[in-house]
Every structure is written in structure tokens, then in C-alpha cells.
């Protein structure tokens, strides 16, 4: 037994890591690093200096999706099968192989199909953004109609029995809020991660969507909807006590839900923009939300009373709507020229045109048609119904356009996006100023400037950056640097960084033949 034990220990000792490891080296690849191909390659070939076996092979598409791919080793050559239909843009192949004596070696191969990926500085309207915008529109519509119904019942119609169809519309909208809210969260998650619709079966888009501001909006919308549904309950034709307060609370929550997400809420200064959006939401919930019920009330005897009460409440709210809307437009645009030049500005202009048309119709109703109805003019009620009907159509169109803002970044945001990420690393011996542009997901350029620890000029012999993701099993991305005439160091090729978040950045600065100083810092990349 002791002899067996000692032999086992010997074996164990032999298996302990050797002082140095063998590693294969990549000699050649097809496609070559940073090459731009016309079409997707049938096979990616990696040639090493010694026989290898594949361990992990991951393909990262320009959209940032990661898939495991298969590779076949033939002595020193590794043949990797690309995924079907890889798409145009810059792809990354994260490869890890094992050398003939067991030590793994890895690397990252970047190449482009068709064209190199341009970083999305400005237009996020990809295929995944549309479903999110549509889901948001559906949620807004359901919320506005449900809460509008409750508000109309208690503040315009004074709690009295409402015209046929009112309860149905309000309750249907109220129940539609929950599925619409879930759809909004899920589609936002899909958009954030760039996933296809099939990913809805996984938890990834849901988790991502729940972290987005739209989740708070959805939560508030669900609460508002619940209160609105409760506020609509009648017993024997009379509203239950406390339901008026519930309707009021639903109204306020609905207004708040607008202020928790969207471009406008985060325009600087936030102290002004967030309340402005809430005020805007408060006003529009009344105006657009009550119109359908007003139309339905036209059939009843209390039509005139409803009209008058509606107009009375609507007047100050319309003023609030216009004031908050113009204020937000000013905050978002920065300058009138910027507004007209951008996609955002064009959507806003279209929205303003529709709102102006709605206003015109509203004024027409108030000052021409309502007195006509009071005076029992023939055809006045038909004209009024048509006018209100047209206003409703315009109102829905305005809500749709407001949801479309999601697809266009405001000029203010474009200005922010154009600024690169600046970093400074300071150690005793060495200092580096680093500029990463654009500092977002996609192709990034690096520019560095070095100084000694006490601000004296310094030129390293060589420098290289290695970027690593600790949360993903992919190989490091290397960025080779080259000196320019003005003393700055630039990346020889753009580095494709497929995911937002924290990247561990290590700059190896060769200060003389025998010394290398590593500078490390975490780079946070915007989506």
C-alpha cells in the first residue's frame, strides 16, 4: 500500500503544471485579420505552427450575438464552419485551441463581410426598434383610453350613468394595459440586446427589459389602469364612493408614467424636463382620453352638458399641453436649425402640425358647433360628431408619432453621442491619456498620449492594448498601436467591440528593451 501511495504521489507530482507551457502560434488565417470580404466565407481557416485541437470556437456577429461554431482540425490547420447567413459588417471569431501537449492558446480574429461595421452614431432604427415603438404606442393608447374613461365618468359626466359603449371601451382598454405593458418590456429587451423575436422564449430580453426605464412606465401604467377599472364600477347606475378619488389617482399615475422614460424626460436640466413631461402627460390623458367618450355621449340627452364641461376643463389643460410641449422641444433641440435637420425634428414638426389641426378642430367645436347645438341648429350634432371623430383620429396619430420619437435620437443626444470617451491612467512611472471614439458598441478607434509620472514628455518604444470581457468566455481583443508625428499613438485598425458595458483594458507600454509597464483601467462602453 505505501508503495502504491508513493507512486500515485509521483504521478500527481508529474501532473502538476510544468514550469513553462508549450503554446501553438497562429501563423496565418483566411480571411486575414481585418480583411474586408465581398461575401461570407465558406470556411474560416486558421494555420498554426504545430498540431492543435479545437476547444472553444465562438462567432460574434456585428449585432453582438454570440454563437458556438464547429471546427475541424487537420494537423496544424483548423477549419471553422461559419454560421448560416452571417450578415454584413464586422465579425469576430473567438478561437481557443489546445497545443499538442495540452496547453490552451486563444485569439480573436476580426474581419468584415461586405463592409466594416459603422458604429451606430445616431440611428438606432434597426429591425428590433420598431416592435418596441409599436408596443409602446399600444400601451400608451390603452392607458389613455382606460384612464380617459374613468376621468370622463367622474369629472365630465359627473359620475352619472354613461352612454352605451362607454364602459365597454374603458374596460377593454383597461384590461389591455397588462398585455401591452408586458409587450413593451419584452420588445424593449429585444431591442436592447439586438435579439430576434424567437428570443422571447428565453429570459434574456425580459431581464434586460425589466432593467430599462420602460419597466417603471409599464408598472405605473398597470397601476393607473387598475385604479381606472375600479373607478369605473357602478352599482345601480350610481358611481361607488371613493371612485372619483381613484379616477384622480389614476390620472396622476398615468401622467407620472410618461415622465419615467423617453428621450424628453432626460433632457437637461432634468428639474425642468421631467415635470414638463409629467404635465404634458397629464394634459394629453384628458384631451385624447376623453374625446372618444365625448363622441359616445353625443348620442345621449346630456350631450350639451358634457360638451360644456369638457371644454371648461380642457381649456387650461390645452394651455399646459402647449406650454410644456414647446418647452420640451426647446430643451431637446438646442437650436431651431438642429431641429429641422434631424429625423427627430421632422417627427416633432409632423406632430406639431397634427396638434395644431386638433386645436383648430377643438376651437371650431367650442366656438361654432357647441353654440349651434345649443341653438338646436339642424345638422349641428352630426357636424359635431364628425368633428370630434376627426379629432380622435388626429389624436391617435399624434400618439403614434410620439411613440416614433423612440426611433430617432434628439439633436441633444446626437451631440452627446459624437463625443468620444476620454480616460486618464496615472501611475508613478507613467501616465496615459486615452481617447476612444466613438466609445460605443461597434468599431472603435484608439488614440493615446504618454507622459512620465511627473508630466514630462515621454515616447515609449512600443505600445499595445488588450481588451478583455470577464463576463463572457471570449478571447482578448488586441489593438496594435503606431506612433504618429505629433507624438500620439493610434490604433492601426479599428477594434470591433460588440457589447456595451465594462471592458477590462490593459495597455502594455514598452519603455525600454527590457521593461514593460502595464496600465490597466476599466472601459465602460455605451450601447
Amino acid at each position, binding site marked *: *500500500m505505501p*508503495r*502504491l501511495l*508513493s*507512486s*500515485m504521489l*509521483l*504521478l500527481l*507530482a*508529474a*501532473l502538476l*503544471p*510544468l*514550469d*513553462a*507551457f*508549450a*503554446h501553438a*502560434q497562429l*501563423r496565418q488565417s483566411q480571411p486575414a485579420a481585418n480583411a474586408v470580404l465581398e461575401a461570407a466565407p465558406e470556411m474560416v481557416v486558421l494555420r498554426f*505552427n*504545430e498540431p492543435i485541437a479545437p476547444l472553444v470556437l465562438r462567432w460574434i456577429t456585428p449585432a453582438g450575438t454570440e454563437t458556438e461554431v464547429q471546427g475541424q482540425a487537420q494537423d496544424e490547420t483548423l477549419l471553422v464552419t461559419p454560421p448560416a447567413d452571417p450578415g454584413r459588417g464586422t465579425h469576430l471569431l473567438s478561437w481557443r485551441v489546445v*497545443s*499538442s*501537449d495540452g496547453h490552451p492558446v486563444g485569439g480573436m480574429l476580426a474581419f468584415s463581410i461586405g463592409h466594416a461595421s459603422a458604429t451606430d452614431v445616431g440611428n438606432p432604427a434597426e429591425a428590433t426598434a420598431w416592435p418596441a415603438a409599436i408596443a409602446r404606442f399600444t400601451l400608451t393608447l390603452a392607458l389613455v383610453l382606460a384612464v380617459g374613461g374613468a376621468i370622463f365618468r367622474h369629472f365630465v359626466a359627473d359620475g352619472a350613468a354613461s352612454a352605451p359603449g362607454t364602459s365597454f371601451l374603458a374596460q377593454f382598454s383597461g384590461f389591455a394595459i397588462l398585455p401591452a405593458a408586458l409587450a413593451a418590456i419584452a420588445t424593449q429587451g429585444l431591442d436592447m440586446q439586438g435579439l430576434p423575436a424567437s428570443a422571447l422564449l428565453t429570459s434574456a430580453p425580459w431581464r434586460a427589459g425589466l432593467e430599462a426605464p420602460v419597466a417603471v412606465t409599464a408598472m405605473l401604467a398597470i397601476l393607473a389602469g387598475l385604479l381606472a377599472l375600479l373607478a369605473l364600477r357602478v352599482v345601480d347606475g350610481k358611481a361607488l364612493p371613493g371612485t372619483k378619488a381613484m379616477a384622480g389617482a389614476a390620472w396622476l399615475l398615468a401622467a407620472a408614467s410618461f415622465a419615467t422614460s423617453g428621450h424628453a424626460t432626460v433632457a437637461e436640466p432634468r428639474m425642468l424636463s421631467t415635470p414638463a413631461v409629467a404635465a404634458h402627460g397629464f394634459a394629453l390623458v384628458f384631451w385624447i382620453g376623453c374625446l372618444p367618450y365625448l363622441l359616445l355621449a353625443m348620442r345621449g340627452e346630456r350631450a350639451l352638458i358634457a360638451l360644456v364641461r369638457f371644454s371648461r376643463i380642457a381649456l387650461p389643460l390645452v394651455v399646459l399641453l402647449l406650454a410644456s410641449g414647446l418647452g420640451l422641444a426647446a430643451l431637446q433641440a438646442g437650436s431651431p436649425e438642429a431641429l429641422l435637420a434631424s429625423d427627430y425634428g421632422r417627427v416633432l414638426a409632423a406632430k406639431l402640425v397634427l396638434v395644431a389641426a386638433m386645436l383648430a378642430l377643438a376651437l371650431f367645436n367650442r366656438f361654432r358647433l357647441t353654440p349651434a347645438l345649443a341653438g338646436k341648429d339642424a345638422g349641428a350634432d352630426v357636424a359635431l360628431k364628425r368633428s370630434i371623430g376627426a379629432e380622435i383620429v388626429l389624436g391617435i396619430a399624434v400618439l403614434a408619432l410620439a411613440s416614433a420619437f423612440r426611433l430617432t435620437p434628439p439633436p441633444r443626444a446626437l451631440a452627446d453621442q459624437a463625443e468620444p470617451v476620454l480616460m486618464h491612467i496615472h501611475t508613478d512611472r507613467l501616465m496615459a491619456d486615452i481617447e476612444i471614439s466613438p466609445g460605443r458598441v461597434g468599431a472603435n478607434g484608439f488614440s493615446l498620449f504618454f507622459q512620465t509620472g511627473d508630466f514630462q514628455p515621454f515616447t515609449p518604444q512600443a505600445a499595445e492594448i488588450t481588451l478583455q470581457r470577464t463576463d463572457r468566455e471570449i478571447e482578448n481583443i488586441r489593438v496594435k498601436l503606431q506612433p504618429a508625428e505629433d507624438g500620439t499613438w493610434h490604433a492601426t485598425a479599428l477594434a470591433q467591440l460588440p457589447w456595451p458595458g465594462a471592458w477590462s483594458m490593459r495597455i502594455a507600454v*514598452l519603455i525600454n*528593451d*527590457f*521593461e*514593460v509597464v*502595464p496600465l490597466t483601467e476599466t472601459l465602460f462602453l455605451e450601447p
Partner: protein
Amino acid sequence: MKTILAATFAAASLLLTAQGAQAHATFAEAEVTQNSTARLTLRVPHGCEGQATLKVRIRIPEGIIAVKPMPKAGWTLETVTGAYANSYELYGAKVTEGVKEIIWTGNLPDAFYDEFVFRGRITDTLAADKTVFIPVVQDCANGAERWIEIPKDGQDAHDLESPAPGITVKKAGHSAH
């Protein structure tokens, strides 16, 4: 049964330890003793990405004095003398400068392996039970292979890509002469 098993284990362990192809530049000696003269053999397993090695340069770190490199047939040998940071006592004499860099110039094709030897005195300035790292640079026609990364305290040398070869320093056993 036990004998067979033991024999199998022994054979297996022999096979495993007999693996060659250590692809980092390392020293054949695992440890040296303070206050003694050591022979250090640098093993160069490959060139720079397939290119032949034309120069092997070793920088002598602080704490190793009285360095004498071994000449190689077919290679030119040069040394660079410089001041030591500390002052040392060697056989009663005070030593403040000596060989700080060794340069062998020649040609070692990538397919071949070679060893480069030098001798030096390990002083007790180098702490016992710590590793002393000796940076090595291989120069080739179009680049260099630099074994110069020194792990920080707590960092494992195995995590580095191009670590400087290291040797463990052992405490002086008995007084040296």
C-alpha cells in the same frame, strides 16, 4: 497487483515528465542559493513567430553580481558593464559595478533549440524563498520576442503571456567562501 500498478504509475509519470516543447524561455535551474555562485542555463525553444533568433540578450537584475557569460561557437559574445544599485562585498573586496547585460549575436533557426549559459553570484540582497526574474529578449530579423513581464505581488506568473524567466532563491545553507 500492487507492483504492476506501481510500475504503471511510474512509467506514466516518466512519460509525462518527458514531455518536451516548453515554449517559454526559461532557465534549466529551478533554484539558486544565496551567497553562492550559480550556473544559469537559458533555454530558448523557438524564434519570433517562426523567424530565426539573431540575438539573445539577458539583463542581469540587481542582486546578481560577478557575472561571466559562456561563449558559444558561432556566436559573438558581448557584455555591457554598469553600476550596481547597491555595493557588495566579494572575497573581501568592495564591488560596485559589473556586467549588467549579456548579448549573444548569431543565428538560431526557429526549428532548432539552443541554450545560453552564464555564471553569477547570487547575493543575499535577493530575498530567500522569493523568485528573481531575469528579463530576456530574443531579437529576430523583423521583431523581437520579449520575455520581460514581471508578475506583481499576488499575480501568478503563469497568467502572463510573456513572463520573464524566474528562479527561486533559497536561503544560504552554510557559510559560503
